[in-house]
């Protein structure tokens, strides 16, 4: 994927460039806002990573200009202003996601990949499938091969989110934001406990485990052959 990084701190920028590059993405880096804006207007990117505080200009201003020009490229806002209201301001200005500094590279990578691909759409009959797992979104039922799996409403939503983003790593914070729809830091392994229950139901007696843990990052459902 082609990703535009607008970040003034050279050290952080180098780290992000390397991290995204190692994951196989092409990164264009702009160290100031004006340059970044021109770059974004000139080329098509799959995602933009935008620092909130740039020398002389608020990152949100760049974002608003971009959106006003009709550019709908997904934008992840990076900010040293990590508080909830800053996040709300960022999303209101047209941002698609928000990550507070300092961040783990793995979290940034997971978010950029999910943003850029925007999830798998369900079939017209409301079915989502990955390998031998099939989710019926209308009937709210889940099957693994011939076996029907009973899930709680929350487990269903976790699984749906993982399947929609199959092949991409989903972090705990992303699960909390998208499945519970709360934005906060639980500071404990509370999400892991929910996923581990889901996994017991989904992967019990299955020859190939579907939900895999990415150590220190989150979870992923990998398609066969990935």
């Amino acid at each position, binding site marked *: 994927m082609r990703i535009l990084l607008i970040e003034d701190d050279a050290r952080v920028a180098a780290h992000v460039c390397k991290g995204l590059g190692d994951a196989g993405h092409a990164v264009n880096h702009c160290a100031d806002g004006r340059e970044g804006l021109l770059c974004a207007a000139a080329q098509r990117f799959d995602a933009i990573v935008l620092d909130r505080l740039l020398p002389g200009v608020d990152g949100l201003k760049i974002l608003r200009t971009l959106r006003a020009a009709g550019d709908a490229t997904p934008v992840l806002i990076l900010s*040293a202003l990590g508080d909830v209201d800053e996040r709300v301001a960022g999303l209101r200005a047209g941002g698609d996601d928000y990550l507070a500094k*300092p961040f783990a590279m793995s979290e940034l990578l997971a978010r950029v990949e999910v943003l850029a691909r925007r999830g798998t759409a369900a079939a017209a009959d409301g079915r989502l499938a990955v390998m031998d797992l099939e989710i019926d979104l209308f009937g709210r039922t889940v099957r693994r091969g011939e076996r029907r799996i009973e899930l709680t409403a929350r487990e269903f939503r976790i699984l749906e989110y993982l399947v929609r983003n199959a092949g991409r790593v989903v972090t705990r914070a992303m699960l909390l934001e998208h499945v519970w729809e709360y934005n906060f830091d639980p500071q404990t392994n509370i999400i892991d*406990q929910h996923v581990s229950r889901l996994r017991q139901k989904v992967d019990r007696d299955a020859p190939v485990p579907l939900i895999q843990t990415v150590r220190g990052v989150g979870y992923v459902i990998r398609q066969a052959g990935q």
Partner: protein
Amino acid sequence: MRLPPSLSLRLAMLYTMLFTISVLLLGGALYWATVHTPLQAVSLQVEREMSALSREYLERGRDALAAALELRAAGGDARMPFHAFIAPDGSVVAANLPSWPREQQSGWSRLEADYYQNGDEVDHEALTLDRRFEDGARLLVGRDIEDIDEVEEKLLAAVSGLLVGTLLLGLLGGVLMSHAIGRRIGLVTRTARRVMRGDLSGRIPLRGTADDFDQLGATLNEMLARIEALVESVRRVSDNVAHELRTPLSRLRASLEELRPAQVVAGGAAIENAIAEASALEKTFDAVLRIARIESGRHGAEFSPVDLSALLADAAELYAPAAEERGQSLQMEVAPGLRVAGDRDLLFQSFCNLLDNAIKYTPVGGWIAVRAGLRAGGVEVAITDDGPGISDADRPHLTERFFRAAATMAEPGAGLGLSLVAAVARLHGATLAFEDARPGLAARWSMRSA
């Protein structure tokens, strides 16, 4: 009597009372001068006459007294003389009083002594002395006091009129004064509330009259300006600290993460440990900043309607596996449809922190109860556990930043969870109390319902 709480109304009542007392004093003085003193003179005169007439009767007999009474009645004194002389057998020997009491009165009495003059009834009142002699004869001697009586009546009417007027004016003045002062004080109170809610730009409106209230308002406004400037500078510092520390922390983490692959090759866990330490540092730093931000009233997210019942159910559901893992039962008694105005994420984080604490500090196999309902116009949430609770000495410090009870030192955490809860409670105008639930701890959160 309990006085009303308003100071101005109390002052008005005090003034009304003082005015009433001065009217009463004035009336008393007038009464003394125009009624009491003349009456005193008349009674002296009547006493003297009585003793002279008594001597006349005792020394010279009935006829002499009758003659003396005739003579007295014909005399030209300004005060008309009255008398009645009744013989021991009850027959009236001489009288110009129209009537008198059948029984002898001890000492002084005032008798009606109206009489007809040219066919018109003329009102008179007689101050009379009544005496019975040893032989059974009875003598009443009096003098007309109609003029004094009239003055007395008019004086009483005037004083009672004045009293009513004073009371009415005093009460009216009191109400007006209390309104006027109450309005000025209300402006101060409202401004103070606004500032407490976090709008530091609130100022007390002044009238420009330079009166006491304007002076007070101007002084308070100066104080508010000073507070605003201080908070603003603290905010700037915390923003700078936030930015200046976050960027190097980002670099530190970047460096550590880049070292990670090398360590995978070399073995060992030093880098992983360093990254974990950096994460813990970031979290503590974030929590401190967040609490500071909430407490400075600058948390900009506007309040929106929040379904507290659903939020509590979500929090309990999120923590259900954690409780189950520790063999604890998590009980929910939450009334449906509880609505409040608030910041959804912060409220959720607060109740999660309380639940997290309850689960962490309740022994394996214990219980945690989440109860919520309407109480006295507000919403009350109680999170109770049957853990060891907390000592009375520690309880007041529970929500202090970095406070950790001695018994919990072994648990991970920085001692910021409850500080955040307290800050969020203050932001929402909620009261947060930690009570001894014997044996556990009960966290009680009450706030206005929406």
